[in-house]
Structures are given as C-alpha cells and as structure tokens.
C-alpha cells in the first residue's frame, strides 16, 4: 500500500484499489506496479492491491479507508462492472461515501484475459486506471429511484417449464397469465409416451398439471396466442398479446367433439401436426383428448367454409352451444406485469439437413418424435410399432447424435438424446420384440438413476455399437440385405466397418433453438448465445436470470435439458420472480437523462429517437420532458440533442472528456 498527501490540495481525495483476482488478473498484469503507478497520480490518497477485492476483507478494507483517510472518490480496477460494480458501490456506502462517487475499471475482460504480452497488458491497465482516476473527480452524488413492482406475472410458453412456473407462482398467490402459441398446453412432453429413466407415463404425470393450470383461479390461460410487443422495465412491463382466431368461442365449447364427427369430411385426411404427420385429422380438430383447454379449433387452410364460404357447416349445426364463429378475428390484449418468465422451449433438429440418413427418402426412416407417437397408446397406431408400409420391423436401428456434436449442423451435445434413445430402444423392443441396435458416439448418462437405466438396457440385450453412422442406403451387397435399409458404421470398439440391415431406422434428432428465437429475444430485449439459445445472466450463479431485470428463462429455451432439470429451472425462475415481486419495489440505476429546461429549444428531434418512449413534449412550455422512470439510460437523446440541453447522469460531458484525456495522457 502507498499513502500520499494529495499533491494538489483542491482535488478530491481518491482511493485506488486493484484486485489480483487470484491469477486471473495477476497472472498477466503486475498489480503492484499498477498500484505504485496509481499512487503517483494527482489526487490519489490511498492506493492498494489485494488478492480478492470482492471478498469481505477486501470490501471492509475499502470502507475502513474511506473513514480513516476521508476518501472522497473510489476507483477499483478488477473484473467486469456487470459482476461487482454493485459490490463496491455497497462498500463505498458502508464507508459513508455516496456510491456513485465510484468508478470501476475492467482490467480482467478488457486486459488480462485478452492479452498475453504481460508488459503491454500492465501498461494498458495503467492507461485505463489513469482514465478512471481522472474521470472520477467529476462524479456527482446521485440517488437511486425506487419504483413499485406490479405483482402480476407473464409466463410465455406452455410446455412443462411454463406450466410448472405458472403453477408455482399462482400457488404463491400471484396472478399469472400463461401464453401459449399452440392450441393446447403440454409442449413436447405431451408427445411423449414414457419418460426416462423411470418409464412412468408422460401423460399420467403431465395432464394433471395441465388441468391444474386450467382450473387455477390465479391463472389466465391464453392458448393459440403470441406475445406481439413488450414495453416498460423491470417491475412494470406492458405486454401486447395476440389471440389468434380458433373460429370457436372458447368459453362456449365444452370439448364434446361432436362437431368433428359431423364435419363434411367423413374421413380425416389432413396432416396431423401433433402426431408428426403419422396420423390424419379433419379441418375441425383437437390435438389430443386431454388437450388443455379442451376446445376444438378450425384450420383456415383446410376448412371449406373458411376457404370458400360455401359449406353446409354441419359442424356448427350440431353444436348445441352455438360455439362456432366463422367470423372470428384475431384479438389484441394488453396486460401489465411486473415479471416475465420465458419458457419457449426448443425445436427438434430437422433430420432432412443430414441427407446421408435418408429421412424423407426412405419410408423406413423415422425421427425420434415420430417414434414417440408410434409407441404411444393414444398415438396413430395405438402403440403398435408398425412401418409406414404396414410391415412389422424385425431389426431396428437407432442413430444417436443426429444434429448434435456436428460442425455441419449443431456443435453442441443435445444432452437428452442418449437417454431418450435408450428409452425408445426399450419401448420398441417391448412393443415389437425386434432386435434393436443403438449407434452411439459416447454414451452420456449423467443423471440420477441414468447409468442404472443404461445397465437395464444392456441386460435387455439391446445392441450397442460405438460409431457414428456414415450413411443409410438401399444398396444391397448380399441377398440378406435385399429390400432393407443398410446402415454403414464403423464398430469402433471392434475396429472394423459393419453393414447392418434394418427395417426401421430411428434418428435421434438433437435440440435446437426455436426457429424464431432471435425475434423473440429482441422482443423481450434479452441476449442469445452464438448457438441461438437464450443467454443466462451467469452460467453458474444466475442461470435463470437474463441481462434484462425482471425477465427470467426456464427450460430448453436456454439450453437442451431433460424434464427433471427443466422443472427444477422453472421452479427457480418462479422463485426469482417471486423475490422481485415480494420486495415490492425496484431501485433504478440513476444513469438517466434529463432536460435542462432553459436550454431546450423545443426542436423535438429527441422524441422519435427514444426507444423506450420516455420523452414527451410539454406543449405549453414547448420543452421536451424525460420520464426518468421509463428512461433506460441509453444516451441516444443526449448525443442527438442539437442544443446540448439533454444531460445524462454518469455520462456528463466533463466525465467523458476527462476520461478520454486520462486515457490519452502519458
């Protein structure tokens, strides 16, 4: 530590602290050298380096110094402000200093982590430190504003994550709106027959939760609906939801399904999306018997009445509750909420992107989701494992890692495919007695009772061949191969290539971000990783938070995960939302803009620029007015104002210019 008498008496007394961050910073930058350098800068009264500034003793040291040395400003060179700005502001407050008399310098992400040249990195750290010390002199005391939090919550996505989050919040007494894009809640889990590793029936554990959502007095369920627009800020969001027309009045329909029988189409003949196209449906339909809400809907693409207006409408005639409304239009609803939980789930990889596996070319090739429907007792074949041509397969292959661990499609491991492939292997064997071959690269079973499930499958006599399948074709080399699908794979444990004929091939497709994940993330103003999944605030310590306060993420929209982890994460997201709401208020960063009224010329150029609609025009005085609660501190207005009458806290001209001068001065 170095103690100084400030050289220029009129300068505020600055305390400077540099953190080693273990070896994260000290491995590249020499903290002692930077500390000594800072000690020599004008105004610096105390300069210290310490192994972990963020630790309790580190914070205590700062508070103590503030009191003892009558410090008036504080500069800490450490990690990203995102991580510890708040920590050091609190330390400042503890020592009796206004927390905004503080500036943080990021010498970890901006220097030690990105440079290998130790000398140059140390010099860079000095430059950044000098800039901060020069700037902090101009800082002003500021106060955080407190704003009340709206206690209502929006949950987006009605899969198992959204269902669980909504129920948790509703049970805690909060009013929840659950918005789901499809006609029913249930998500991917509703497609599954059994769940690994316990093999309990997916419907048996899911449908009671679906009914609970529908019945819960605190939950408003809007299916067949999408969020169109989100405005506002933590604790006070205004959300526009579009309710798409079902052409059936939801409150009147009781789901008797007589209309489906009465439809002018005697036989179902249209692509049944719910059953992955393996079954057929009519223009008026319901996805599955336990669909929630249990309300039919009409598909405008195939309904004769909606397409031509010339149908006998036998469906409507038979409905004694008069629930049909062919004139129904999309409806926009506006709601106010304090917190939002995003649980928008995943999209299964499109197997056609891997043409070597012949999906769409050979009818014997299926995706895993198709098999989920095929082995399902309420699926299109009532659980009978039967090929598209009616034959029963004698040999079945399951190809792991389709659209996973592959630079050509998705680089990541989709985490659930090994386990669901084991489950499908078990179910196929159980339902059909076929020989089943699993083609895997590495068997990943890292969960409670997962390895034991793998053991069970091994003992059931399922074949496990370690190798990535190169291709599937119908080119026979031997009479036994005629008319079958030939799988070419290296049995890497044996060390040679094998050709294995099968009748049915299952592609264990990986999990991808939803096709519109980018649009959704922009709508909610959150981040995405390079692969397109929603970005959590911190991979370990804030896994359900986002960089936007008040917006939480749960389930496979954040990364591929299985049902137990999804439910755990949904509970965590709900708990975070509850913590926000029950605090009752939020403190807003004071980095907002304000108008110096006498200097404003009333040109209105700032008005259309504000992305948060925080600026209004006071017609009597002809001056712009900024609502500091709505302002998010982006600075656009301050930069654009031609008369320089808009100022932004923490980004005053003095502060910015002195920082620039500081970084450039040698």
């Amino acid at each position, binding site marked *: 530590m170095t103690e100084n008498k400030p050289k220029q008496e009129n300068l505020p007394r600055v305390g400077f602290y540099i953190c080693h961050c273990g070896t994260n910073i000290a491995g590249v930058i020499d903290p002692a050298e930077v500390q000594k350098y800072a000690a020599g800068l004008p105004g610096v009264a105390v300069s210290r380096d310490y192994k972990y500034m963020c630790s309790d003793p580190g914070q205590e040291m700062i508070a103590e110094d503030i009191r003892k040395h009558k410090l008036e400003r504080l500069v800490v060179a450490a990690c990203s402000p995102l991580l510890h700005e708040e920590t050091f502001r609190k330390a400042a407050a503890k020592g009796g200093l206004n927390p905004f008399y503080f500036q943080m310098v990021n010498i970890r992400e901006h220097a030690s982590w990105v440079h290998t040249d130790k000398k140059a990195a140390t010099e860079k750290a000095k430059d950044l430190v000098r800039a901060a010390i020069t700037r902090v002199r101009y800082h002003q005391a500021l106060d955080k504003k407190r704003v009340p939090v709206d206690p209502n919550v929006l949950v987006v996505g009605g899969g198992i994550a959204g269902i669980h989050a909504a129920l948790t919040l509703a049970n805690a007494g909060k009013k929840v709106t659950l918005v789901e894009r499809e006609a029913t809640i249930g998500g991917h889990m509703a497609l599954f027959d059994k769940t690994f590793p316990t093999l309990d029936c997916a419907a048996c554990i899911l449908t009671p939760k679906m009914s609970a959502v529908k019945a819960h007095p605190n939950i408003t369920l809007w299916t067949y609906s999408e969020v169109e627009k989100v405005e506002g800020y933590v604790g006070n969001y205004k959300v526009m939801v579009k309710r798409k027309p079902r052409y059936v009045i939801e409150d009147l329909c009781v789901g008797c399904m007589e209309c489906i029988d009465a439809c002018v189409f005697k036989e179902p003949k249209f692509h049944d999306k719910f059953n992955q196209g393996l079954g057929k449906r009519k223009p008026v339909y319901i996805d599955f018997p336990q669909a929630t809400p249990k309300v039919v809907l009409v598909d405008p693409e195939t309904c004769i009445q909606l397409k031509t207006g010339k149908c006998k409408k036998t469906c409507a005639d038979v409905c004694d509750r008069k629930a049909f409304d062919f004139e129904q239009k999309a409806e926009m609803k506006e709601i106010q909420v304090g917190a939002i939980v995003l649980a928008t789930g995943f999209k299964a990889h499109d197997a056609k992107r891997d*043409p*070597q596996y012949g999906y769409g070319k050979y009818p014997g090739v299926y995706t895993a989701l198709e098999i989920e429907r095929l082995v399902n007792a309420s699926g299109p074949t009532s659980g009978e494992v039967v090929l598209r041509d009616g034959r029963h397969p004698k040999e079945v292959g399951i190809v792991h890692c389709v659209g996973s661990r592959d630079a050509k499609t998705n680089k990541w491991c989709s985490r659930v495919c090994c386990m669901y492939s084991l489950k499908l292997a078990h179910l196929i064997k159980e339902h059909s007695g076929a020989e089943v071959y699993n083609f895997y690269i590495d068997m990943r079973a890292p969960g409670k009772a997962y390895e034991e499930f793998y053991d069970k499958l091994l003992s059931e006599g399922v074949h496990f061949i370690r190798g990535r399948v190169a*291709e599937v*074709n*119908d*080119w026979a*080399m031997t009479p036994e191969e005629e008319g079958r699908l030939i799988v070419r794979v290296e049995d890497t444990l044996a060390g040679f290539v094998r050709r294995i004929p099968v009748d049915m091939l299952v592609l264990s497709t990986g999990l991808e971000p939803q096709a519109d994940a980018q649009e959704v993330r922009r709508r909610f103003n959150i981040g995405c990783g390079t692969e397109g999944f929603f970005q959590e605030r911190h991979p370990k310590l804030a896994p359900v938070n986002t960089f936007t306060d008040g917006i939480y993420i749960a389930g496979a929209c954040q990364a591929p995960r299985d049902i137990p982890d999804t439910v755990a994460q949904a509970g965590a997201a709900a708990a975070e939302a509850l913590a926000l709401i029950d605090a009752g208020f939020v403190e807003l960063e004071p980095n907002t803009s304000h108008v110096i009224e006498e200097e404003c010329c009333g040109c209105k150029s700032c008005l259309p620029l504000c992305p948060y609609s925080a600026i209004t025009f006071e017609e009597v005085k002809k001056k712009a007015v900024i609502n500091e609660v709505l302002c998010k501190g982006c600075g656009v207005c301050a930069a654009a104002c031609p008369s320089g009458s808009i100022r932004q806290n923490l980004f005053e001209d003095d502060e910015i210019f002195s920082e620039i001068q500081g970084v450039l001065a040698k």
Partner: protein
Amino acid sequence: MKYQYFPGCSLKGTGRAYEESFLAVFKALGVEISELEDWNCCGATAYMSVDETKSYALAGRNLAIAERAAEDVIAPCSACYLVLNKTMQGLKDHPELKRKVTSALKAGELDYKGTAKVRHPLDVLVNDVGLEEIKKRVKNPLTGLKLAPYYGCQVVRPFATFDDQHNPVTMDKLIATAGAECVTWPLKTRCCGGSLTGTVPEAGLRLAYIILKEAKKRGAQAIVTPCPLCQFNLDGYQDQIARKYERIDMPVLYFTQVIGLAMGLSAKELGIKRGIISAEAALAGR
C-alpha cells in the same frame, strides 16, 4: 458467352471423347471456348503425395496464366476442377504457403493473384447457359433411354460449389432435358477407385464393380459421368471385372455425349465409338 478451357492431360489422352463432345456441344450452343494458353498438368492426386508446395505451384502456374484473361475457366476433368479450386482455397487460407508459391511463380515471371474463377461444365450448362436454352436445341430427345447419373467424387467433394454434396442433381437435370430417364440410386457420388484401379487393382476393381452392378440392377442402359477417370475405370476394366466377378456390359458415356446426341450431333463428332463397351445397342434399342 465466352470461356477459357483447361483440358488437362486426360482430355487429351484416354478421355478424348470427353473433349470432342464437350467442344461440339458448347459450339452448338454458341458458347465460345478458347484453350488456356500453354497449360500444364494440374498435378492431380499423385503430385500432392510427393511435394505440397510444388503441387500448389503447378496448379498456380495455370491459374496465373488464366488470370491474364477475364473469362472464367472451365475444367471438365474432375481432378483438374478440384485441384485448381483446392489450390485457390489453400493459398487463400495459408499465407505462408501463398508466399512460397507466389515467389516461386515470380521466378518464372508469373504473377498469381487468386482472381481466376474455375468452373465445371455442369455448372456452366445449368447456371449460365440454362436448361431452357438447351431444351430449345434438343432435336432428338432420348425418350425411353434409362441412364444412371454417376458424378464420382471430386466434382462435389470437398467443395460443393454448385451442387449438393450428398445428392447432386445438375447432371440429372441435363439428362432429363435430353429426354432420357434417370435411375434413382444411392451410388451417385461413391468412389470408382480413382487411380487405385491401376495401382492396387484388387481394391480398385471391386469399387468399379459395385457401381456397374448396381447401375445394371436398377435398370440403367448406360452410366453417365462428368469425369474422365471414372469413365476410364468403369469402361476400361470391364474385362478384368468379368474375370474376377461377373460380366456387366455397361456402356459409360460422358454427359456431354448424352446432351450432344439429344441435340442431334453425330455419334462421330461426340466420340461415341471411343467407348470400350459399345453404347450402340443401348442407344439403338431404346
């Protein structure tokens, strides 16, 4: 339309029917072709096994000469097409290699910039000339003829610039435009054995046999290919294949011959008789 033409050694030797039919078809389509001035061997696959830098320099000389004119270069031979493209890519990706190669080329007063564009005739026919334009000139549609489109490896691998790597379709489209029928088969891009058929015949012959057998099984009357080495392996070794496995008797045509026939060009112009397995019966019997 004007292009430079890189024949490569095969089109001047065992693959001369490819050159004859390629030139005849492009002339009939009104496309101007000029042979690349003083071209040298591209290096093929063999040179890469001896010396990497030299192999890039060999191809580099051709590219440097080609850069002197503005026109794209057509390389009908798959190996030449791949080697020239691979050289451009390799020199772009590896600056040190590029430095060595360009300085060596300077010794021969050659200036390599990497601005040439090397194309395959399949690409030019489908994307520049256009199927509509070819269809207009089809006088003698090959109705009833069943052909197996066989692309081989190096037209689509590793660079898939104008067609799909797993299921290429440009030649299928040209065959359909010629009025013939394509058989569907999974061996479109499986290796014919390449130069191994000459050096390790026991390995190479099997690969050629698999392709010939499957084409016959699927009802093809001839195989159609865009590669002189594939044509040579599949056509030239059928006697040896007959001795080792079984007799197939499958004519192997160049796609340019097929289009030429449909456009009414003579069998002589197109070098049809240069096939060791005669295509006459297949062409007459349809």
